[in-house]
């Protein structure tokens, strides 16, 4: 058993991590909360004034907020649908016997390691550009008019890019789970004459369901904060067509210098993320006990 001595040492050793994270969370977050009740613009320093919930009123009734909220939802939902269905399909495929499985897995995982600014700019310029992009070349070769992705479907284009980045994550985790499936059970079902589809629905999918939920929750946390991909491709435009909450708060505070309004937006973003985080924490917490 641990001695008193080591117990004291242990409390001492954990304290730097706890204090740092406490400072990181409490100090800036309470500052944001405080700023959100001020009329505070970086262009007129020293003129800060307490205005109660006015910033929230402005932020939450601004048409830009509704546009951003809708875009945030579409972005998260769109990427989730693509990566989860694609991830399940790819995991099933990669679990089949084949030659060079290790290499294929490496090819599939690679996009996850590409930094967001690189993947966004490569897709934007070398693939989706209406003049010189590969898609434009392909369209011309087939006698079609090239499509200007970022002018006519900015949010869709960003969803495509982000889905490409996150598909490997879903695939990798679902594949790991699939490989832990008891193969004897599948063989037994096969012997009993269960068809492919019914084996998938009754054995494979239930086995994966927990992991799918975890992937959904973790991705949602990250997808709510998508920023770089929007910054380097559309700057949130045209208009607010590809602005999400994260980008809206950034624009309000660092481009328009409206600290008060931006802070109110930041708090709204924290509340939104927390709704997802509560579910995720519950699942992780359950696993920790086991």
């Amino acid at each position, binding site marked *: 058993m641990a001695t008193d001595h080591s117990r004291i040492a242990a409390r001492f050793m954990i304290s730097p991590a706890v204090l740092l994270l406490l400072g990181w969370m409490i100090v800036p977050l309470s500052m944001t909360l405080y700023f959100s009740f001020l009329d505070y613009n970086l262009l007129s320093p020293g003129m800060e004034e307490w205005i109660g919930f006015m910033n929230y009123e402005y932020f939450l009734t601004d048409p830009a907020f509704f546009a951003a909220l809708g875009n945030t939802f579409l972005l998260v939902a769109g990427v989730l649908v693509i990566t989860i269905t694609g991830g399940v399909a790819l995991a099933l*495929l990669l679990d089949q016997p084949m030659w060079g499985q290790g290499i294929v897995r490496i090819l599939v995982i690679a996009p996850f390691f590409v930094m967001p600014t690189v993947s966004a700019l490569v897709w934007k310029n070398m693939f989706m550009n209406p003049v010189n992009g590969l898609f434009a070349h392909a369209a011309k070769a087939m006698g079609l008019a090239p499509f200007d992705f970022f002018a006519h479907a900015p949010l869709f284009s960003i969803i495509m890019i982000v889905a490409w980045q996150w598909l490997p994550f879903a695939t990798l985790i679902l594949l790991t789970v699939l490989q832990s499936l008891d193969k004897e059970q599948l063989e037994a079902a096969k012997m009993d004459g269960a068809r492919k589809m019914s084996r998938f629905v009754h054995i494979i999918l239930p086995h994966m369901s927990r992991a799918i939920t975890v992937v959904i929750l973790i991705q949602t946390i990250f997808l709510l904060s998508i920023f770089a991909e929007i910054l380097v491709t559309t700057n949130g435009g045209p208009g607010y067509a590809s602005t999400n909450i994260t980008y809206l708060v950034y624009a309000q505070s660092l481009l328009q210098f409206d600290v008060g309004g931006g802070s109110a937006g930041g708090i709204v973003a924290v509340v939104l993320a927390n709704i997802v985080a509560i579910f995720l924490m519950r699942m992780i917490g359950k696993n920790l006990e086991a």
Partner: protein
Amino acid sequence: MSHTAIDSRKIIMTAIAWGIGLLIFFPILWTILTSFKTEADAIASPPMFLGFDWTLENYTEVQDRSNYFQHFWNSVVISVGSTLLGLLIAILAAWSMAFVPAKGTKNVLMWMLSTKMLPPVGVLIPIYLLFRDTGLLDTLTGLVLVLTLINLPIIVWMLYTYFKEIPGEILEAARMDGASLWAEIIHVLTPMAVPGIASTMLLNIILAWNEAFWTLNLTAAKAAPLTAFIASYSSPEGLFYAKLSAASTMAIAPILIMGWFSQKQLVRGLTFGAVK
């Protein structure tokens, strides 16, 4: 099932999987290929796949024009620095939680995790203003600090799950033999924990290298790592596909190689033990 049936099935699966794998990998392959083209070849119509004049001029030009290696070095300092600092703090915390657990250990772990779920935009303004007022804006020190803090929960969690797998009896035996706390950590625990620490380090370097919220918002020119430097290609002048590709290839190559070695750790580290 007969032998030939199995074989033909395997051939079909191999073909489909390789096809899809190459399709997903293609944008990266295309970037690497384009980095060896001249700017004119890079936008040639129809596109040129292999039959172009291979050149290295983009790589030298990217360096000459923009001091590329300064940004590369910034990325190295930020990712390695924040990882080492984070490890230093996290090893102590994870050790104490794994081997001397208390009633509140689980809550502390969960609370640490919850800080990771705080959207960065919720603390953007205070951090920006604090950095401005303390002169930390656009400095490597400032970025190392922020990235250490945002990735600390992941490091603690990963280390905790690795340390948990070390049997406690070994430590008790060492204690019986009269080993001091430090001797226990240095001679007994550390050798067993090295693989776990190494994987944690690898994953965290990857995450820090690719971090693109704080690096974009807290740097200008001086301390900008590759994420921010590449972002400057979003307002291009003239022909730039080949140069963008060369800059991108150098930015992703080291991390791609490290990433391929850390597939397993990726699952463990990013699901916080919820998927094993």
